[in-house]
């Protein structure tokens, strides 16, 4: 199934951070006595400091793969090797900001669970509010924030306790195009300053190419990775300017072709 993988994007990132082998996950529904295979023999690697996007249609199992990496689901088969000192941090798809906490308390939530002292926590939270452009909203409750602002809070919260691996599950999926573009640019800036290893799930080909060093294309039924494409654009990237590059559209075409062929296969 797997297409010939292109050489990895950047040679400087050589150390493996995540290694996924033969990962399989299925769900069983007792009422209908039906078993659904959500992910089938998924295999990929992510280098330390690399930004990898997994792109695929809804229901292809990409979120399931990410949730397994995050420890929120168990796997049925295969292995996951994560070479990091702490568990990965997750940014969720829907509004995951806790409505009873202010922006500041939401961002500091992981630290407060660990019992980090208030003064130290405050200093760290202030840093992240600054980094994510939330300083002016520090004491607001989430219901007063726009969707984009809420996702900034989620990103800040995932970064606050400085874990090595960041998992992002379509974090900008529910936002309008303009807000999404702004947040993509901000995310790139944040990623460049923090040097995290990122696995980012999206159904948007455009978004995957904008952000990633490498794009993994996933096809549904059973959910498996059908291609691994290097994205050659220089860093730092300008999310608007990069659209003038012909290679952007060539890659867009390539990914669409892969997605379309995999769905024809499914119909046949």
């Amino acid at each position, binding site marked *: 199934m797997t297409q010939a993988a292109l050489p990895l994007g950047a040679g400087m990132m050589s150390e493996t951070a995540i290694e996924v082998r033969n990962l399989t996950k299925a769900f069983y529904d007792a009422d209908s006595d039906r078993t659904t295979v959500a992910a089938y023999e998924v295999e990929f690697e992510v280098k330390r400091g690399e930004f990898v996007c997994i792109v695929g249609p809804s229901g292809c199992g990409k979120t399931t793969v990410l949730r397994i990496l995050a420890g929120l689901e168990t796997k049925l088969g295969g292995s996951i090797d994560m070479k990091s000192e702490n568990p990965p941090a997750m940014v969720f798809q829907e509004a995951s900001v806790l409505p009873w906490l202010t922006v500041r308390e939401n961002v500091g*939530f992981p630290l407060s*669970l660990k019992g980090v002292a208030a003064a130290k926590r405050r200093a760290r939270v202030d840093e992240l509010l600054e980094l994510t452009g939330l300083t002016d909203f520090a004491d607001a409750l989430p219901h007063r924030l726009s969707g984009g602002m809420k996702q900034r809070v989620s990103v800040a919260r995932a970064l606050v306790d400085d874990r090595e691996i960041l998992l992002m599950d379509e974090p900008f999926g529910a936002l309008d195009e303009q807000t999404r573009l702004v947040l993509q640019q901000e995310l790139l800036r944040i990623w460049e300053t923090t040097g995290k290893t990122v696995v980012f799930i999206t159904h948007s080909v455009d978004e995957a190419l904008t952000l990633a060093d490498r794009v993994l294309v996933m096809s549904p039924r059973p959910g498996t990775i059908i291609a691994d494409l290097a994205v050659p654009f220089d860093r730092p990237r300008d999310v608007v300017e990069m659209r003038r590059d012909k290679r952007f559209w060539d890659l867009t075409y390539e990914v669409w072709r892969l997605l379309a062929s995999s769905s024809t296969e499914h119909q046949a």
Partner: protein
Amino acid sequence: MSLVTAKLTEEQIRELKAPAQRERLFRSISYFSPLLLLLLWEVASQLNVIDRRFFPPPSAIAGTAWQMIASFEIFDHVGATLRRVSVGYVMGAIPGILLGLFLGLSQPARRVLGPIFAALYPVPKIAILPLILLIFGVGDASKFVVIAIGVFFLLLYNTMGGVMQTPQIYLDVAKNAGATRLQTFFRIALPSALPNIFTGLRLAAGSSYIIIAAAEFLGARSGVGFFIWASWQTFAVSRMFVGIVVISALGYFTILALELIERKLVPWAKH
């Protein structure tokens, strides 16, 4: 940043502010709307549209009430009732909330213990009052217990329902942030269920006064319920009404106070 500076006319600003001002007006009226009912009653009674022997006009009841206030008679009864209700309420609410949180979060516990509470819940609390009087005597203890039982179930079910409605995403957030089970319990399930817990607290406040009135009819020497019953025995209808109004007012203000507390504690929920 913007290229155009927006300027609104004063009329537009007035128009913008109008709904908020109306809302404030309605809110202040809402505190007094029960008085409207009293006014209607007064007029109907004075005009003999309703039988004055059973429904003396509120002004006459107010006269009786004033005498009872001046002689401090009413305060002893109000004090006794409030003491019983508040102790019983707390005794029932705290275990109800804690057990509701636990059953809401743990499916196995819900499966095993759920049917027990489901079987006990429909037993009318007044029906077991004689049994409770037998066990705890005619003193305050039996009143505390019967109120606690009524309050317990309302908080158990409302808290459990609230916890079960906790969006999975909040639990995922807690797990990913490294929360322990106890932290998930108090920092996610509890705040998430808070709007439902307050619904339970309000319902429980209402039913506490129903239960205490009945309990004081039967086995008490003081309290507003006892006072209503004693007035009935002497056919002192005005005094009966004073009792009824007092106990209704107690319930009304308790619920009002709970709403104010809720507005402070649950600012993220819609009211």
